[in-house]
C-alpha cells in the first residue's frame, strides 16, 4: 500500500504574506514545508518559486527560502555561534567577512547580542538561546520567505512572545514572506493573517485567520481547538447569553467582559 503524505494540495502564497498551516498530528504539515522548500520533490505536481519551477535539477535560488525544522537547535554544529550562523552564507559563496557581518545582523534580529554570543560554543547555551541561534542561522542567508515548523515550541512564555514579535517585525520591516506550522493556535492567531487547515494530506480549509480560527465547528472536525482568547470570549458570550462578537485579542476579551458587566462594576 502506498501512503500519500500529501495529495491535492494547491496553494498560492503571495510575497509578504503570513500564512499559518494548522492540522492534526500526521496531517502532512511538515512534509508540506519540506516540499515548499524544495527539499522533498513531489512525485506528482510542482512547486514554483516566483518564475522558477523546482525540479531535481532546478534548486531554489540561494536566499529565496529559509526553512527551520522542528527543534532546529538539534542541528547546531559550529565551533562557535558566529561560525554556525554564518554557515549558510558561507555555503552560498559569500566572503568570510561579509558572512560574519550577515551572521551578526541575524543574531541581532533574533535578540542575541553578537558581541556576547558570537565566540561562545552553541552547546553551552540554554535551549531558548540555542533556538535563537538556530533561527539566526536560517535568517543569515536573508531569505525572502521563511518556512517555520513550530518555531516557538518548548520555549518559555517570555522567549515565545519575544520571538513571535521579532518574526512579525521581520515581516513588517523587510516584507519577508512567512509560512508557519504550529499546534499553538494562539501563536498562529498572533502570527498569521491567512490560515490553511491540512488534514489527511489535503487542504481542508483556506481563509482569513480571523474566520478560520473562530470557526469552532470546522476546527473540531479536524481535531483542533480554537485559540485561548477565542475560547474565553465564546464562554463569556455564552455566560451572559448575548451575541457579542468573537474576540481575537486579550483587549477584545476585556472589552466584551466590560460590556457584559452591569454599569458601575461587578455585581
Amino acid at each position, binding site marked *: 500500500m502506498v501512503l500519500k503524505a500529501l495529495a491535492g494540495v494547491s496553494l498560492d502564497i503571495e510575497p509578504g504574506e503570513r500564512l499559518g498551516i494548522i492540522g492534526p498530528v500526521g496531517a502532512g504539515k511538515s512534509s508540506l514545508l519540506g516540499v515548499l522548500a524544495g*527539499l522533498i520533490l513531489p512525485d506528482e505536481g510542482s512547486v514554483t518559486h516566483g518564475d522558477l519551477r523546482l525540479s531535481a535539477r532546478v534548486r531554489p535560488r540561494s536566499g529565496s527560502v529559509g526553512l527551520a*525544522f522542528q527543534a*532546529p537547535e538539534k542541528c*547546531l554544529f559550529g565551533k562557535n555561534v558566529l561560525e554556525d550562523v554564518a554557515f549558510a552564507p558561507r555555503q552560498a559563496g559569500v566572503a568570510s567577512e561579509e558572512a560574519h557581518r550577515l551572521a551578526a545582523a541575524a543574531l541581532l534580529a533574533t535578540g542575541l547580542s553578537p558581541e556576547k554570543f558570537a565566540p561562545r560554543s552553541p552547546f553551552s547555551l540554554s535551549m531558548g538561546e540555542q533556538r535563537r541561534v538556530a533561527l539566526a542561522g536560517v535568517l543569515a542567508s536573508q531569505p525572502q520567505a521563511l518556512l517555520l515548523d513550530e518555531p516557538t515550541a518548548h520555549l518559555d512564555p517570555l522567549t515565545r512572545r519575544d520571538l513571535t514579535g521579532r518574526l512579525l517585525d521581520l515581516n513588517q520591516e523587510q516584507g519577508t514572506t512567512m509560512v508557519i506550522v504550529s499546534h499553538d493556535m494562539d501563536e498562529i492567531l498572533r502570527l498569521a493573517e491567512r490560515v490553511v487547515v491540512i488534514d489527511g494530506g489535503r487542504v481542508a480549509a483556506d481563509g482569513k485567520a480571523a474566520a478560520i480560527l473562530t470557526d469552532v465547528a470546522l476546527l473540531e472536525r479536524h481535531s483542533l481547538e480554537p485559540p485561548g482568547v477565542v475560547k474565553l470570549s465564546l464562554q463569556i458570550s455564552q455566560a451572559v447569553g448575548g451575541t457579542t462578537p468573537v474576540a481575537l485579542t486579550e483587549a477584545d476579551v476585556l472589552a466584551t467582559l466590560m460590556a457584559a458587566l452591569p454599569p458601575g462594576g461587578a455585581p
Partner: protein
Amino acid sequence: MKLAGTVIGQFYPGESLLHRADPRMKILASMAFVTTLFLADGYAALSVLAAGIIAATATARVPITWIYRSLKPVLWLILFTLVFQLFLRGGEELARLGPLPIYRQGLYDSAFLAPRLLMLVLSGALLTFTTPPVLLTDALGSLLAPLNRLKLPAYELSLMVTIALRFIPTLLMELERIILAQRARGADIGRGGLVKKARALMPVLIPLFVLSFRHADELALAMESRCWRGGRGRTLRRKLRLTTADVLFGLLVAALLLFSLGLGIL
C-alpha cells in the same frame, strides 16, 4: 534518501512457532547456523541449509517486505563482490565479456558467496524479528552468565547490545532529519572529492553525536529513576524455561546442520 524505516535489529510482533521458541535456543541455533554456513562445502550442503532457513522464515510469518528490506542492504555488497570475484580472480579462463575475462574459480566462488551472505543476514534478521528486545537481553545475559565468574558484567554486556539494536532506527531517523535540515541551510552533502565529502559530513555528524550523548544521558536517568541498579543480584520476573518443543527445535537444527556438514565432507 530513505534511511528511516530500517528493519535492522527490529522486532516483528507475532505468535508463530519461532516467536514462541526459547530465545537462548534461537541465539545458539542462529550462531551454529552461521558457523555451519562457512564450514559446509558444496552445493548439496548449501541447499540443505537454504531449505532450513527458508522453512524457518516461512514458520516465522514475518511479512515478505520485511524479509526483503532486511536483505536489501547486502544486495549491493553482494553485487560488488560478485563483480570482483568474477573478473579479478585469476586462474583458468572460462569465457570473455568484452575485454574482461571470466574465471572458473571466480564463478564458482561467487556462486557460493551470494547465498552464504544472504543466509547469514537472514538468520540474524529472523532472530531479531521473532525475539522481543527484553527477551533477547535476558537470553544473552543467561548465555553469557559464565562470564560472571570471571568478574565480567555479562548482563550489562547483553543490555548494551540490545540498547544498540533498539537505537539504530531512532538514530537513522534523526540522521535523515539532520541531513535535510543542513541541506536547507545550503550544506553540500555527498558531492565533491573525498576530502570535501568528509568535511561536508561534519555538520551532520556533530549534531548526531550530540544527540546520541543526550539520548544516553536521558536513558540512563530514566533507568535509574526506575531503580535499575545493574545486573548483580538481579532476578527475572519471567524465568526462561526450556520446554520439550525448545529441545526438539534445538535437535532439529543440530540434525540439519550436521547433515549439511556431512554432505560437504562426502
